[in-house]
Structure formats: C-alpha cells, structure tokens
C-alpha cells in the first residue's frame, strides 16, 4: 500500500541521474585519452623509467592500453621482462 502511494508521488524508482553520471564517467576516461594522441606514449615512457630501476624490460614488445567492461575501465600494460636487476632485492633485507 505504501509502495503504491510512493509511486504515485514519484518516489518509487531511483532517479536516472546516477545512471547518466556513471555512463559519463566511463565514456570520458576514453575521450580524455583520445584528446591527446601523445598521452599513451608519455605514460609508457614514465612506466619504463620507473620499472627500469628494478628490471630490464623489452621496450619494443611493450603494450599499454585501456580496456573497459560494463562498470570499470582498466589500464592494461603488457611488459616483457628480460631480466631482473640484482640491486632491487637489497631493499628487502
């Protein structure tokens, strides 16, 4: 009974604005990457720079991209490792 009254006054279903916001958030992740073609390249360089402290990687075989599912966007990086650097484990003792 209360549900019916609620529905009459338009409070029965949640508003559609949250759906709008969520869809926008996802679509803008991709849009913003595409605005600047250099974006992925710059990101790649930064990743290489920080990883190189710890391991030797194959920069040519490296792939970085964005993938999205229904509700999230992920940064996927496939980075072939040639060898680990010895010094990296020193910090662990």
């Amino acid at each position, binding site marked *: 009974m209360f549900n019916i009254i609620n529905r009459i*006054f338009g409070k029965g279903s949640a*508003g559609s604005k*949250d759906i709008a*916001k969520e869809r*926008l*958030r996802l679509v803008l992740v991709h849009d913003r990457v595409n605005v600047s073609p250099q974006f992925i390249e710059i990101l790649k360089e930064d990743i290489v720079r920080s990883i190189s402290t710890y391991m030797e990687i194959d920069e040519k075989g490296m792939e970085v991209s964005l993938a999205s599912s229904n509700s999230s966007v992920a940064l996927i990086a496939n980075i072939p490792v040639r060898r680990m650097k010895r010094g990296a484990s020193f910090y662990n003792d």
Partner: protein
Amino acid sequence: MSEVIVVTSGKGGVGKTTTTANIGTGLALADKKVVLVDADIGLRNLDVVMGLENRIVYDLIDVTEGNCRLKQALIRDKRYDKLFLLPAAQTRDKNAVSPEQMRQLCEELQQDFDFVIIDCPAGIEQGFKNAIAGADRAIIVTTPEVSAVRDADRIIGLLEAAEMHNPKLVVNRIRPQMVKKGDMMDIDDMIDILAIDLLGVVPEDEHIVVSTNRGEPAICNEQSRASQAYRNIVRRILGENVPLMSLELEVGLVDRLKKFFGL
C-alpha cells in the same frame, strides 16, 4: 581593460547564441561598450535572436576581405546604445576566414570596446578554431544531458591544448523539479565531472522562447527566472561575488500534500 570572451559548447542547440545575446546585452546595460561577433559563418543566427536581421549591410567576411571598413559592418543596437553586432556572412562557409584574420579582427575591436563577445559555432572544426583564435577566455555552455556534458569535456580539452586555460561553465536549461526527483544531473554532478569553475546556472524558462520570437533579449524581462540568472552571470563577469540563485520553485499543492504525508 578590454576583454575578448568566446562562448562555446561543442554540441549544438544548448544555448550558445541565447547566452551570447543575453550576456552581451547585460554588459551593455551595465554601461560597458560591447560588440557581439557572430562567428557562425554560413549559419548566422545571432542577428535574428537580437532582432537586428533587417539592418545588416556588411558582414564579418566583408571586413576580413576588405570590402568595407570595420565600422561600416558594425550594427548599433538602437535599444541599448553601447551594444553593437558584427554579423556573420550567410552565403559563405567557415573556410572563408582564418584564425589569423580573426585574431587581427579581435585586436582591432578591442581598441574600441570593453567587451568583445564571440558566438562560436557548434563543432570542433575550422569554425571553432576561428572563434577561439582571438579570445582571451572562454565560457562553456552545457545542459544537464550526457551528450552535452561529454562534448563540453572535449571542448575543455581542446581549449587546454590551445593554451586557453580556466574556462568558466554555464549550465543552461536546468529543470529544478527533475533534479529534485533525481532524474536530472545537478550542478555538483556536472562540476564534479568537468572539474571547471561555475559561472552560472540558467533554469529552463518559457520566457526565452517568447523573447527569441520577438527578437528581444530576455535579460530585460524582470519576471523571467532565466533573465535573473543571466543578470547574475553578468555581475560575476564584472567581478562581483553573487551567490547562486535558489532554483526551488514555489511550494505547490502536491508538495504540501507530500509534506503532510511525510513523503
């Protein structure tokens, strides 16, 4: 100090021309010398919105191609004597003018006017590039819809790439009742997504249709809520700190009933 402001949006039909007309008229009413420039070559509309369509002799392209002097192409609005219009050409296209020519035009206009307001065409192509070329800052108009907000975000990115920083947002056609029901994005949602400063919020208002029919800018109408919003925007452009107006409508019978039932 003279300023060149471009009014842009990406998406068409969100209210760029109406916003340009009302802000320009409002600034003129505040005793500033203002020129409105219609950069929508081939699809001119600012002239009809302003009610000045019958007074066009020369246009923007006539000026850039040297067929007339700049002063000859400027139309003085007889209702507000500090307001002028530089109309777009109707029989040419966006490629008839270059960004460099627009930059020169804006510089020339700046010597005579306190404010140069440019009405940018929809889209991100040549017309957009021309319109922003001579501008110091940008006002981005959007509506609370996914398509308009998405395009606004792209425009913000392109302005950033063109080294025009800190654009200001006008949210147009907001419908308070739908916001209240949770069926329309509110101001905070849009600020959160676009991450730029808010210049003003204009509610959906039938007065705008009537004033466009008549060719009289709505900002002069005391009863119109959109007009109140535009007056606030003008004061903010002039540096005043004006709080956002309340978008709450008067409490109607249904609301009172709801309150009675505690809903």
